[in-house]
């Protein structure tokens, strides 16, 4: 880690009524980066957010903020603000008063409040909406009010709890760009929680993939996409073909009963492994030229490409994204480069991240 550390979790565990939702998690985050906590519901991502915000306290372990433990610092005293999933805008206050809420608590002067609020509203493109009621705002506008309300307090860390999940697809894509842009302009740390892997890949500097209260993998979007560390990450981060296989030796892996050249090494001879091949890395060729031969079972037109699903002679299912069309029932060959093969250790029950 080369930047300045802002948040550090050290062996943090959180239990609710004996249920472990966060299991002995340690990590650190730098100032000014865009982090995403990615995982299915119940994986512990929101728990991490609430721990940082201070709404809950860890059962075990320590959380550091600028190197100092921040237990027993109530949420209202933390340099952290949250954008909530349901926005949590105060229905009895108008846009201006919602944004001004934190400043009024700090007993700031009226003139300063006015200036800061209009600045924040300008930042999220909501000039002129000051006196609107929350009920009169659309979903995307409420989203912006929630962001303005958080950033007007100049937090060092902005927590975003699935803030885009209530928006429709088009608006969501727009907001992804805007949020990324906003983070660059503000230069503060964003911690973004989502279960949408595309969102995570598009926006983040770094991604934490979580499952069952543990961090599965940490890395840049590219690292996570290209080199998933296990079956869960590979499956969660995108559509993939995952097959069981055996590492014969360095740079040689066996699956579907055939041996293939690959770029991975460092495994024990004959170690059982999982192999991932992304659907877009598979090329449709004539049956004779294919490393694998499949029989096409179904075909969907996805606009940019066709999504082809078929089975090889061993009954393994293969998913292919191709701009070429194939007919259902047709036999086709599949080709792929050694770089397209990602070899992963098989997950054991006791193995963490």
């Amino acid at each position: 880690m080369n930047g300045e550390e802002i948040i550090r979790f050290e062996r943090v565990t959180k239990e609710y009524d004996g249920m472990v939702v966060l299991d002995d998690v340690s990590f650190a985050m730098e100032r000014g980066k865009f982090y995403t906590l990615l995982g299915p519901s119940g994986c512990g991502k929101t728990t991490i957010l609430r721990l940082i915000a201070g709404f809950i306290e860890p059962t075990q372990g320590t959380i550091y903020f600028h190197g100092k433990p921040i237990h027993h610092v109530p949420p209202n005293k933390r340099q952290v603000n949250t954008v909530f999933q349901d926005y949590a805008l105060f229905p009895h206050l108008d846009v201006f008063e919602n944004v001004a809420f934190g400043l009024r608590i700090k007993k700031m002067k009226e003139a300063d409040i006015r200036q800061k609020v209009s600045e924040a509203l300008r930042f999220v493109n909501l000039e002129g909406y000051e006196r609107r009621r929350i009920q009169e705002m659309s979903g995307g506008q409420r989203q912006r009010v929630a962001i303005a309300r958080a950033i007007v307090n100049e937090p060092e860390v902005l927590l975003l709890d699935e803030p885009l999940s209530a928006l429709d697809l088009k608006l969501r894509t727009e907001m992804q760009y805007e949020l990324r842009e906003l983070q660059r302009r503000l230069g503060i740390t964003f911690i973004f929680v989502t279960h949408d892997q595309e969102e995570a890949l598009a926006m983040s500097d770094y991604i934490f993939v979580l499952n069952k209260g543990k961090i599965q993998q940490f890395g840049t979007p590219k690292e996570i996409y290209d080199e998933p560390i296990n079956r869960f990450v590979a499956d969660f981060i995108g559509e993939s073909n995952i097959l069981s296989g055996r590492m014969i030796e360095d740079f040689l892996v066996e699956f579907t009963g055939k041996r293939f050249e690959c770029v991975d090494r460092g495994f024990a001879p004959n170690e059982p492994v999982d192999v991932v091949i992304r659907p877009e890395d598979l090329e449709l060729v004539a049956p004779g030229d294919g490393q694998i031969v499949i029989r096409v079972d179904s075909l969907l037109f996805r606009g940019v490409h066709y999504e082809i699903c078929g089975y090889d002679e061993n009954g393994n299912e293969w998913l292919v994204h191709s701009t070429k069309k194939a007919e259902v029932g047709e036999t086709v060959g599949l080709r792929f480069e050694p770089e397209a093969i990602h070899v992963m250790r098989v997950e054991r029950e006791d193995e963490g991240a």
Partner: protein
Amino acid sequence: MKRTHWWGRVYLLIVFAVMYTPIVYLMYYSFNSGGAMHDFQSFTLEWYRDVLSDDRLLMIVLNTLVIALLSAAIATILGVIGALAIYYVKRQRTKNALLALNNVLIVSPDVIIGASFLLLFTVAGIKLGFTSVLLSHIAFSVPIVVLMVLPKLEEMSPTLIDAARDLGAGPWQVLSSVVLPFLAPSIWAGFFMALTYSLDDFAVTFFVTGNGFSTLSVEIYSRARQGISLSINALSTLLFLFTMLLVIGYYVLSQKGGRMYGIGGRK
């Protein structure tokens, strides 16, 4: 929208005619110089003059209003605190137990409430009169306020409180600038409900009122037991008009409620 069948409309008309006949009947004969609730003889305001010159009756009206406003105000405060207390109880079983106890006074018949309060005041050595009536009215209004406020509280997204704390609000500020304004419409509804229950109560008051003190309901009862007197009719007409004013006031308030608290959010 679907149209009502003609027999549906006729049915409703009959029901509403029956509902309003007694009230109209009362008001109509309040202008009868004949002195009975039949055979309208000629128009007179004699009974109204009677009512307005009856100092004792006016004193009773004043008592009733003071009891209603005071008890409703205190019950509203207690009820809001009670709703918050129940809301914050985490254990479901404790919560259910509190709710069950809360509802005891709502499902109990007035006679039993009256009798048991009479016992309570006797044991506690509280003299029957203003104090005992006021305490009783507060006591039976509290659970009503709780029931009006609690659903609104449960409806409030918990992230709203988180958001306020996140923005720097301490416990008092969370309460005063988020929770209470959010609850305002239901608090007003609870207050008005308590007010009506107090104004309308007869049975409980009848038990705990003693000799020196009386409210309108009790007074009407003791007069009605002596037979028909058209000054009761005049009084009921006046009360009905007053009630209408209250209802209109309530509707205006509840319509405006949202707006009012939308503007006055600063502290």
